[in-house]
Structure formats: C-alpha cells, structure tokens
C-alpha cells in the first residue's frame, strides 16, 4: 500500500505521507498499550505502583518496599516518584485524570481528608477492623464518620532538639521537663556572638504549627473553631524571644529561606522545636560527615499547669486508590506497612513508625549515632500526641487563613490581638 502511494503524483504523495505518518503514530500508540497490558497481567506476578516523594532522600520508602517484596516475592513495587513540595498538587492532578496508581501515600492528614471526601480513596474499614490497632498511633486521624480510607505507618511528633555541647559550655542542665518560661530563659542564656557569627538560643521555623499547633495541643484549643485567643500566650513567647534577639527573626528567616537543618547542624542555634522526622536527617548528616553536632532530644516545653507531656504530631499513611489496578495487592501492602514487620523496617532507617511498642523503640534507639541518654528516650515517649490540625472539609481553607495571619503577626505587621481577631473574622466570613 505504501508503495502505491509513493508512486502517485507529488500532491497525492503529500496526503499519503501525512496518512502514513498518522498510521505510524497510531501504530506506536497501539504497541505501547499492548506492552503495558502484558506487563501488568501475567501469572500471579503483580507490579504494584505506589506514589512516593523524593525517593532518593526519603529512605523509609526503599526500606518499606524491600521488606514488603521480601515477604511477598510475587509482588514487585513500582514507585511513582514525585517532588515533595509539589506532592499534593501533583497527586490531585493525577487523580483528577483518573490515574490508576495502586497505593497512594498520604503525606498529611489535610490532603487525606480532601482525597477521601472526593471519593478518590477506597474504603478500607474492614481491613482496619480486622487488624489489631491498639498500638497503632495516629489512626484516629483517619476516621471519617466511622470509616477509614487509609492506615498510618508512620507517626511523627514534635520534640525539642538541643545542642549538648552548647549546654555543657554554658554550664546549663539539659532541658528536662521545662516550661515555656524556662525555655525562654535558656534561650537567653544560650545566645551569644554578633552578626554572622551569632549563635541563637533557639530557632522557630516559619511554619505556623510551631506556634499554633503546639498551643492548640497544650491548651485544648480548636484550630477549626473560629476563636483563636488560645494562641496568644504562644505568640507572646515567640515574639518576645525574637524581639530580644534570642531567635532568628521571622522576616530574616523567610527572606533567606532559612533551612532548619542548617540552623541546627551548623550550630547556629542551641535549641529547636521540630518534628521527629528530623532525627533521621541529623543522623544521616552526621554519618556523611556534614556535621559533628553533639545533639540530644527532650520533650517539648510545657505550660506551667501541665502535669503530662503534651505535644502534637501528624501521621503519614498509605491509602488504596479507588481506581487501583491491583486493589487486593494494594490492601496487602497497606496492612503490611502498619504491621510490626513494616514498623521495624522503617525504624531501622530512623523513621518513627505508627506502631509503637517497646521492641520497636529498642530497635529505634539501637541506630548508629542515636543519643543514648535517658532524657532522649523519655522525649521519645510523650504522654499525649494531639493531631497537628483537625480534619474536616474546612481544614484546608482555614489552614490558608491561619498561615497568612501567622505571617502578619510574626513580621510585626499586626499586633497579636489584631491578628487573632482577624483569623476569627476571616474564618467566619470566608469559610462556609
């Protein structure tokens, strides 16, 4: 047929060429489809796709996948790697396009509530019901009207990192069971130097949770409620520390896009409230020789009237895509990730699993480079871990408002009272 076309006159040749091209293109498309089908079908061997972020720098995924593949030799995991900063945007776009990735990692609970409320996640309540979840921290966050659409495998919570060397040099006791007032005193005593050489007593990262989530957790305030007066004490503390020069000021931190890792690892700060995910980060930095900071972890400072150690945290979970190609294998994976085997696999790379028992804590503290003191172990077992941000349909909109007003308070554009009042007004008027 092609020969015939080629023999035609030039003008017809043009049509022929165009059609031949079209044919070739469709032929290619057809081939691709065929290959895809044959790869995913087959005799019991399953390729399970899992959406992840920054695979290279997030070792827990590799650890979890290796452990799962070892336990299930007929399943191969195909990670779908997404840039961490764009993770939720990208996933939203993928799901909107009917993507068939089997397992979806829920990077945060806010994202989870969005996907679940849109019906993009499979209901796995039966799976949760048939598993022993008594030691599984953070599961409650995934309860939507009695149904579960994801199961946590990892539970990060906030604690206080501190530089032991600086505490020793200043002759101060390590920050065991301190109040916020004592924390401010320590920050003052640990601040030294000027200009580029300045060492700050503490570092508050620019996220709103550093102020808002901890005060919600420790006062019992509701971040979705509309009355935000419970933030006031924490803002006063943070602004006081910043105005006295005991912490890098917010404006500078934003302008130089300050990296909290750098602040701690280059010993530019003596203390830093931060999530447990940073443990694996600082361990890795020490192992690579990027830092020789002598560090420890302590419980978060508390309000003076508190008898327990209260902090906040957020779980990370795996969910099954409603459009999953291999739903059964995907459920197996979700179950495995929340099991003791899965928990051990990620504890070995310095990640805090959702499943918590003494065996796993032992495995965790057996890591190379982990601080071995009792204080650090205590810090690892807070009494109460409140959810960083409650989940509801309004969470995401309120999050945006709280964040914008947080910035205005921290740069000194609004007083604490004004900022808190505006938060309430905006939540009332903008979020329906």
């Amino acid at each position, binding site marked *: 047929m092609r020969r015939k076309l080629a023999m035609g006159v030039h*003008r017809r040749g043009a049509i022929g060429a165009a059609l031949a091209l079209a044919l070739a293109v469709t032929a290619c498309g057809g081939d691709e489809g065929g290959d895809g089908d044959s790869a995913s079908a087959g005799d019991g061997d399953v390729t399970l796709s899992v959406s992840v972020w920054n695979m290279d720098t997030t070792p827990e995924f590799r650890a979890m996948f290796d452990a799962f593949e070892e336990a299930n030799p007929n399943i191969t995991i195909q990670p779908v790697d997404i840039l961490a900063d764009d993770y939720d945007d990208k996933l939203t776009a993928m799901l909107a396009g009917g993507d068939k990735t089997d397992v979806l990692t829920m990077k945060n609970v806010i994202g989870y509530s969005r996907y679940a409320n849109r019906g993009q996640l499979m209901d796995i309540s039966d799976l949760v019901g048939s598993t022993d979840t008594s030691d599984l921290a953070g599961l409650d966050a995934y309860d939507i009207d009695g149904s579960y659409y994801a199961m946590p495998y990892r539970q990060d919570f906030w604690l206080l990192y501190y530089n032991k060397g600086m505490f020793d040099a200043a002759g101060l006791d390590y920050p065991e069971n301190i109040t916020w007032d004592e924390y401010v005193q320590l920050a003052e005593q640990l601040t030294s130097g000027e200009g580029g050489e300045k060492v700050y007593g503490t570092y508050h990262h620019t996220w709103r949770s550093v102020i808002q989530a901890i005060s919600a957790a420790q006062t019992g305030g509701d971040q979705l409620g509309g009355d935000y007066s419970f933030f006031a004490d924490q803002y006063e503390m943070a602004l006081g520390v910043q105005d006295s020069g005991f912490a890098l000021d917010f404006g500078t931190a934003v302008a130089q896009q300050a990296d909290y890792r750098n602040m701690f690892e280059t010993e530019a700060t003596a203390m830093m409230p931060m999530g447990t995910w940073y443990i694996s980060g600082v361990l890795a930095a020490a192992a690579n020789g990027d830092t020789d900071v002598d560090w420890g972890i302590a419980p978060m400072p508390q309000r003076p009237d508190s008898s327990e150690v209260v902090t906040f945290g957020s779980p990370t979970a795996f969910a099954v895509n409603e459009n999953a190609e291999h739903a059964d294998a995907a459920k197996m994976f979700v179950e495995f990730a929340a099991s003791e085997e899965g928990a051990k696999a990620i504890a070995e790379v310095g990640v805090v699993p959702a499943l918590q028992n003494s065996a796993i804590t032992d495995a965790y503290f057996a890591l190379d480079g982990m601080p071995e003191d009792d204080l650090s172990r205590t810090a690892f077992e807070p009494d109460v871990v409140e959810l960083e941000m409650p989940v509801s349909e309004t969470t995401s909109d309120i999050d945006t408002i709280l964040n914008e007003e947080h910035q205005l308070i921290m740069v000194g554009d609004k007083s604490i009272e004004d900022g808190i009042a505006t938060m309430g007004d905006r939540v009332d008027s903008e979020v329906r």
Partner: protein
Amino acid sequence: MSHVTTQPDAARPAPSERGRPPRRQGRSRQVRRNTLVGWSFILPNFVGFALFTLVPVTAAFVLAFMEWNSFGSPEWVGLDNFRRMLGDENFRVALFNTFFYAGGHIPLTLVAALTLAIVLNRKIRGVQFFRTAAFFPYITSLVAVAVVWNMMFNPTLGPVNQILETLGMANPPGWTASTDWAMPAVIITSVWRDMGYYMVLYLAGLQTIPEEYYEAARVDGANAWQRFWHVTLPGLRPVTFFVVVMLTIQSFKILDLIVVMTDGGPGRSTLVLAQLIYREGIREGRFGYSSAIALVLFFIVLTVTVFQFRLNERRKA
C-alpha cells in the same frame, strides 16, 4: 486508506460524462483536491492546537459557570461563581495587588529598558559587553533570580539595606518581610530581570531612525533633550507600542516570580490573580470558581490591550 488510493481513478471523468464540458467538473474536483491537500498540511498543527489550546480554553469558559471539583460531573450554577467573587475578599486583594504590580512593573521596565538602550546605542568601548551584561538577567533561571534577590532584600543582613544604612537611612524598609514593601521588592526584581529583553527591542528600534533626522534637528538648533523628545521618541513609537502591550500581558499574568519570592506573603500582601486561580483550582479543587477568576483576568487583559490598540490607531491618524 483504500479510499485515498482509489482517488486518482475517481478523479478521472467517467466515460458518460465525456460529452459535457470537461473543464468545470475537472476544476471543481481539482479545487476540492487542493483544499484537501491544504487541510492535510495544517492538520497536524491544528489537531495539536485544538487538543491542547482550543478545547481547554473553551472548557475554561464553560467551567466558569459550573461547579466542578475535578472528579464527578460538573454542575451548572449560572452566575454563582461571579457573585461569590464579588464578596470574596481574597479576590479583591488579589485584584488590587495585580494592578499594583502592573502599575509599577510596566512604566518602570519601559523607562529602564529605554534608558539602557539609549546609553548602549553609542559607539563606546566594550558596548557589546555591556549589552550582553544587560541582557543576562533575562536568560537567568527565574528561581535563581528570586532566591538571590530574596537574600539581597534580607532586612537585617541583606546588602540592599546595608547600603541604605550606610547612606544614612535609619529605618530601611523590611522588603519581603513587610506587607508594605514586599510588592515593591517583587517589582524591582522583575524590572531588573525584564529590562534587558526590552532593551534589545529598543536597540533594534533605534537603528531604524535615520541619522538624517538628528542632523536636521541639530541644524535647527535642537538640544539633546529636544532631539530625544522630538526625534527619538516618535521614531520609537511602534516599538513602544509593542513593548507596552507585551509588558501589560506579562504583568497581569505574573505568577512565577511571586511564588518563588514571597508565595503571596507576608499575609496576602503579594497575592496576585494568577496565584489565586492556581490556589482555588489546583489546591482547593474548585475548578469552576478558579475558571471564573481566570475569565475575569482574561477580560481585564483583553480590555486593556484593546484600549491600547485604539489609542495607538488614534495617534497614528
């Protein structure tokens, strides 16, 4: 496929038609065939255009009157999205900020580009080097530009404020850390980045002004300022028109620089329309509302551009 290969035979007049004047028939077939060939040439391009531009743009127009969260079926809501916009403070803030940005970016870039072009249009040593240097920001990665300028604008340690302090300013602005100065900081950065590109356009424009005009003006006793005002500027009018139109469109769709530099902050002080569209659509999944805002942005740009064209026509006349 076979349809095409049999075409040569079909094109030949059938025996029974031999008696009729053959030319008309043959001609209309010829015309049809030519049309077909023509279509086949633009087809690949048109398919791409239709698939990736025409359909999405039309869809955005329709979506503006619907409520759709990217899954499920869209629901017709009429003018609800536009009504909502009227009461939405975020929209008002973003609209104001977009005009603020355009109002700063367009004239400042224009003046900076023109000044650069006039300075670098002389026969001075190393002019090529300076022209290249002036163009450099435009080909630099935007993220790099934003990050480095952010550091320069650092309120306490940044070079900008250190220079201002040396010059005797007691309370230099907080730039990106202040709600009042964040937008000016973004505007300065964008002017710095874009002026090189428009300078090149102006340089090209300057070459088209005949040297005789200047000589004649000199003979008439015009000074440098008069020569600029009465010869250079009118001579550059076509280029200026193009530059203004391009700058306008570019200013109203500003997104990238702001996302990297301030992400709309502090608070909402640099939140612009394009960013609100992104936030409402991609992040919150309100594609209907987001399309409605996009539609409004489109009509703003359209109105301003049409107005500029009109103005240009009138001046030409």
